[in-house]
């Protein structure tokens, strides 16, 4: 068990951080369990329709033959809509599939199906529609073509899960670091460490490094849950998702250190934490899109670190973009992170 030579102080400080965190059961709950429960509650609450009924829009069915065939299928809810309206509803996730009727050249008619194959409901609807229209012999209505329109992120849960990942990275970074620093200060542990030859930047860096140790688990808990329970996939490369999470976590580690740099009591640091985080809870598009705020505010909202993180996460998870498309958000996060770390080191109160 004994070690002859001492290991690097940064390693030891980080190890101490990680052990202290893991041994604090409440913190583990708030970081890992709470966001999953939140996703479950919101995901269930905002389910637009029951799972069993698949909503299919029918456009231009003059003879009524298609509508009648579809209505015969038990698990389909059929609505007749003009083309524009149907497309709008499909994009909004209110329709799982659109059936576009065409009068054929030689008297024989047919339909085109328009759907988003990345949505599980749409794939189910496709099967149901195909069966209703052509499953029995003879074929009632020929299916001429299938238009695959990929519009991922159309469900609320698709929008929500990346937001929760971002929110969780912010919360665990800020609270996790802010509280440990201020507790160490009130217990005079910071002063005791300041009396050793420990490099002060090592102490602060150990917080950032210990955050990385939990990052994988933290993100995997929420993303994995969203995938298994609600079928929220990651459309883009996992490596880019990992990079976005990494930069986001480091950014909030820096902000957490900055907020905790001066306060002498838990009450004071809690107040500052809320002051910093509450605006981002509301503005940064975690639970609803910030597009709902007036357009003039969008620039400022996008400059907030949580907005940048949420936007980048949604781009990767929902829209499947690559690294290049997330560079502006990564830059915003990087700037916040570096600036707050540098200021935190300067103004840090050791006793």
């Amino acid at each position, binding site marked *: 068990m004994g070690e002859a030579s001492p290991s690097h102080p940064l390693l030891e400080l980080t190890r101490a951080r990680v052990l202290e965190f893991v041994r604090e059961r409440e913190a583990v709950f708030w970081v890992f369990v709470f966001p999953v429960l939140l996703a479950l509650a919101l995901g269930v609450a905002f389910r637009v329709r029951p799972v069993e009924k698949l909503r299919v829009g029918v456009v231009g069915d003059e003879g009524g033959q298609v509508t009648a065939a579809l209505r015969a299928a038990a698990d389909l809810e059929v609505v007749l809509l003009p083309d524009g309206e149907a497309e709008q509803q499909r994009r909004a996730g209110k329709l799982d599939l659109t059936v576009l009727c065409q009068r054929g050249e030689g008297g024989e008619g047919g339909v085109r199906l328009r759907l988003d194959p990345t949505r599980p409901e749409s794939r189910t609807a496709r099967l149901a529609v195909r069966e209703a229209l052509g499953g029995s012999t003879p074929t009632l209505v020929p299916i001429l073509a299938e238009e695959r329109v990929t519009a991922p992120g159309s469900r609320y849960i698709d929008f929500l899960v990346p937001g929760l990942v971002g929110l969780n990275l912010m919360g665990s970074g800020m609270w996790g670091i802010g509280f440990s620093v201020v507790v160490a200060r009130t217990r005079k542990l910071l002063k005791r460490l*300041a*009396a050793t030859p*420990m490099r002060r930047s090592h102490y602060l860096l150990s917080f950032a490094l210990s955050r990385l140790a939990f990052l994988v688990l933290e993100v995997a808990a929420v993303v994995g849950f969203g995938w298994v329970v609600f079928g929220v996939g990651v459309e883009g490369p996992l490596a880019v998702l990992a990079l976005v999470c990494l930069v986001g976590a480091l950014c909030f580690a820096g902000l957490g250190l900055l907020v905790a740099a001066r306060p002498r009591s838990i009450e004071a640091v809690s107040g500052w934490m809320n002051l910093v985080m509450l605006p981002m809870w509301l503005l940064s598009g975690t639970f609803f899109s910030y597009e709902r705020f007036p357009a003039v505010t969008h620039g400022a909202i996008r400059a907030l670190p949580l907005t940048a993180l949420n936007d980048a996460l949604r781009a990767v998870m929902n829209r499947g973009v690559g690294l290049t498309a997330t560079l502006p958000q990564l830059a915003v996060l990087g700037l916040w992170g570096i600036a707050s770390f540098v200021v935190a080191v300067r103004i840090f109160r050791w006793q």
Partner: protein
Amino acid sequence: MKRFGEVTAVAHLDLEVQRGECFALLGPNGAGKTTTVEILEGLQRQDAGSAELLGHRWGEGHDLELRQRIGVQLQDTQLGERLTVFETVRLFRSFYARGREVNETIALVGLTEKRHARVGKLSGGQKQRLALACALVAQPEILFLDEPTTGLDPQARLQIWGLVERFRSEGGTVLLTTHYMEEAARLADRVAIMDHGRIIALDTPAHLVASLGAEQIVEFEAAGPLPLERLAALPGVRAATRRNGTSTLEVAAIGEALPALLAELQRFGVGIQSLRTHQPTLEDVFIRLTGRALRDG
């Protein structure tokens, strides 16, 4: 000198601690002991005057070297409760380029059996020995101890004293603050008595006690008042004081003073409720110098 706003915590302090010496700052709470050691530890900056440690001053480019060479135990530092004893000492060991092996240090302070216990589960005395381990793991030349045994039971206090004596026997220098006169008398080669930010006496414990010129201290409580001048004028008595109804006589010759005191009490018809005599201590020196007891604060 060090000021905190309007309050001057320490003023006109002039002292020198020799290598290999154990030097104690003795005084009540608020006397400026902690401020003095923290200036020497480089944790506070003095407003005026200078402090030199191992040939260097703080803030002149040798801070890291100085920190490598000193071991510090602060007043009421609470180490992380969720780490174990071993993890805590290992963490502190990693800060020092040279130092003692972790398990050896834990054995030194007698915590081997508690090696894997969480800090939060330790008793007060064990926590204090762990704090000492965090200082000793650096194998320091100077050990700073700020009230190392405050709040500990007598047995835990003896264990800490044993550790300090062992460190000294290996050639270490100790600067200690305490408000226990037994602690200063037992551990220190020299004692500076502090009150209100000043040193009011500085000498070896034996010389300080001898400066009273008293062979014995007589304390008694009487049913009625006796004029202090009469008591001080009794044969064999050097000085008389009274606090909270207890009269204290510094007695040069107990054989003369005691019969004379009893005769005086009888003459005034005052009954005696209690009477004690003891060898003079640093406590009596402090009372003589300040008119207060150390524990009165």
